[in-house]
């Protein structure tokens, strides 16, 4: 079994309204010293495939679904469990 972790972030320089809103909410709650908040999505996909096939499939998934390259960067990790 493979556990695939995909983290999809906004590219550097792309506005992050959700991060900004959270920063603001934290400030309204009187938290101090907050410089920045960023938000990303994390997907865990569990695959019943051999490692090599899995890796290939994951590349495809990312391209077809998880990421829009205009605004997103991503990290991916595939591990056998």
């Amino acid at each position: 079994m493979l556990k695939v972790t995909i983290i999809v972030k906004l590219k550097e320089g792309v506005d992050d309204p959700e991060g900004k809103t959270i920063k603001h909410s934290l400030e309204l709650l009187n938290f101090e010293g907050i410089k920045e908040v960023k938000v990303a999505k994390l997907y865990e996909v569990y695959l019943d495939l051999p490692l090599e096939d899995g890796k290939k499939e994951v590349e495809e998934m990312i391209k077809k679904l998880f990421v829009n390259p205009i605004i997103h960067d991503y990290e991916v990790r595939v591990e056998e469990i």
Partner: protein
Amino acid sequence: MRAKEIAPKVYEIDILNASDEELKEINESMGLALSLEEMKKLQKFFISLGRNPTDIEIHAIAQGWSEHCSYKSSKPVLRKYIFGIPSKHALIVMQDDAGVVEFNDEYAYVFKIESHNHPSAVEPYGGAATGVGGIIRDILNMGAKPIALVDPLFFGPPDYPYENLNPGIKHPLYLMQGVIAGIRDYGNRVGIPTIAGITYFHEDFVNNILVNAGCLGIVRKDKIVRSVVSKAGLKFVLMGGRTGRDGIHGVNFASKILTEKSEEERQAVQLGNPIIKEPLIHAILEANDAGIIKGMKDLGGGGLGSVIGEMCHAGGVGAEVHLDKVLLKERNMAPWEIWVSESQERMLLAIEEKDIEKIREICEKWDIEMSVIGQSVEGSYLDIYWYGEHIVHLPLEFVTAGVEYERPYKIKKIEKMQEIPKEPNYRNVLLSLLSSYNIGSKEWIIRQYDHEVQGRTVLKPLQGIINYETHGDAAIIKPLKDSWKGLAITTAANPQIGKIDAYKGALYTVDEAIRNLVAVGARPHSFSDGLNFGNPEREEIMGEFHESCRGLGDAARFLGIPYVSGNVSFYNEAFGRNIPPTPVLMAVGIIDDIRKAVSADFKKDGNSIYIVGETREEMGGSEYYKLIGAKSTLAPEVNLEELKGRMEEILKAMNKNLITSCHDISHGGLAVALAEMSIGGNIGVEIDLSSMGFMRADFKLFSESPTRWVCEVKRGKEEEFERIVKARRIGAVEGENLKVRDGNRWLFNIHTNILRGSWRNALRNYLG
């Protein structure tokens, strides 16, 4: 507890020989939420059968007897006051899952309001979403297309100190944001506009929030489906979501007091999935159009158990169910879990055998799962099988008829008193009221809900010049393309007046609902009542319940407007505190021609301003007294004759197109009503209060006396208006400021931009 396994995951429970102590233990360990009396009744029944029950039999019965399913504390009171108000239009009243009322010759509208309080307190996002999902199903299962949602919400104050929160209680802001996100994400995703609601903040709701949700649908009369199976041989088709362990004992949870431990009751919180619901709506409506649904009910509180039991019992047939045919989310579920699970997004249809293929085809097109899990049979017994083993054999009557109590009650005595404060700085009071969280703009919420989807919203919840809008009193939906007839929808509640006097609070709530509908030009037509109360085992709470119901009943009966559906939520108690009596109304009015609808924003320079109704020095429960910290137990008094009179007059004047804007006077009184109308029209008014007679100006401006409206009347039509409506002229639309004097004495003069600024900041201060 003595139990022996008689089939895989089915146990026979020894209750025949159980002592009282053991009965209590059985109740406790099985999570039945029954009283000892009820356990004994159960025991007696099985003694008469001469056998022990299986665990699933006990669960099935406990489910049927829960407060939520059987209304055991409320039924007798409801029967006395709420039920049976005669009406020509009401078609199905307090029988099925939602009320059905005639719209025109061909169509009927269907609606209901319901509570989802405890689950939302524990998990605001999922709880609120599930509440919306549940109420939509109630409408859908009458065969109707859901076309509008409403969401009355009650929270603790947004600025409540964290330190003061009881253990396990979440902060009002956290709860509110979660609840609103849950309603937004669910309602928007299924494509039903959320067009009205209440967002009310008060300390009384810190420990126990209220999340009510209402839905309205439209159906061709010949397509109405009943929640009844009246013929043997019909197949039970379970479609939509799968059945899981989520939501087991949700109904019991709803009938318990919230405690620190409630956090652990996660299993009782069901989770809705709008992406199953949306195609499910399409599929059900398609099947209904094809005429193949012979009976239908959604799976809400109580799960399969209450659905099959109630449908068959109502139709006088028996039921045969094969639980191994139910599609499951997780393996290893015991039959009793399957029977009581409240997993969301499920509908049960009764279908002729020959139509099974057709329904399969429809489900396939919409990517929905279904399975046939049993059928109706001759007789009056519920028989359940599990991989061929016969595990339940009970008379339906015993399972579904439930129990009823005449709970003792005590009506509280009210000492009348009213402090008279120093005269205030009028400008400051008005601006403070406008920026207070109960009065200020709810735009932050309203715009997160798609209130336009389906293209039927012809009078929006926010009214006025684009991007300058103010609050409207009711929204109007135009349900049919080829008819100008519209449905006005509003919600009303007033817990603070109810807290002083439950009876007067209820009258006031009806008054406010009527005011809101009349303000947009609609004739009040029917009500759904959502009754939120504390712990009914306390006499004074039962007293409040009686008084509220009496008030709701008296008012509606006098006006000839029926309650066609409703919901009771008891046990809104936490940490020894009960919520104030909070009956919430979802009210529907009819407007024959939506082109005559009237909005709340001032329209035009030179038009005259009138106040309709009597202003009195009754400041109990008012926002003004709360602001300045003055005390009063003089609750506003509704005169039903006056209400009826003014209502007819205003509707008549509107029908003659004399009124260009109208707003009811509610929270914050006359001053706030005027300010809101100015804000939406981006135009000022000059007002002289002297025609209102001799009274302190702060009472004139901030009293919340019922049965009052502000009307803007077309220039030149004043005489005609005055002939029809009993009203006092108090000024005219002009300039950019709200200018108010009482005779020769100027009280304030504030620019509309400043009014708008204060008003819009109310929630923004907390939410950004």
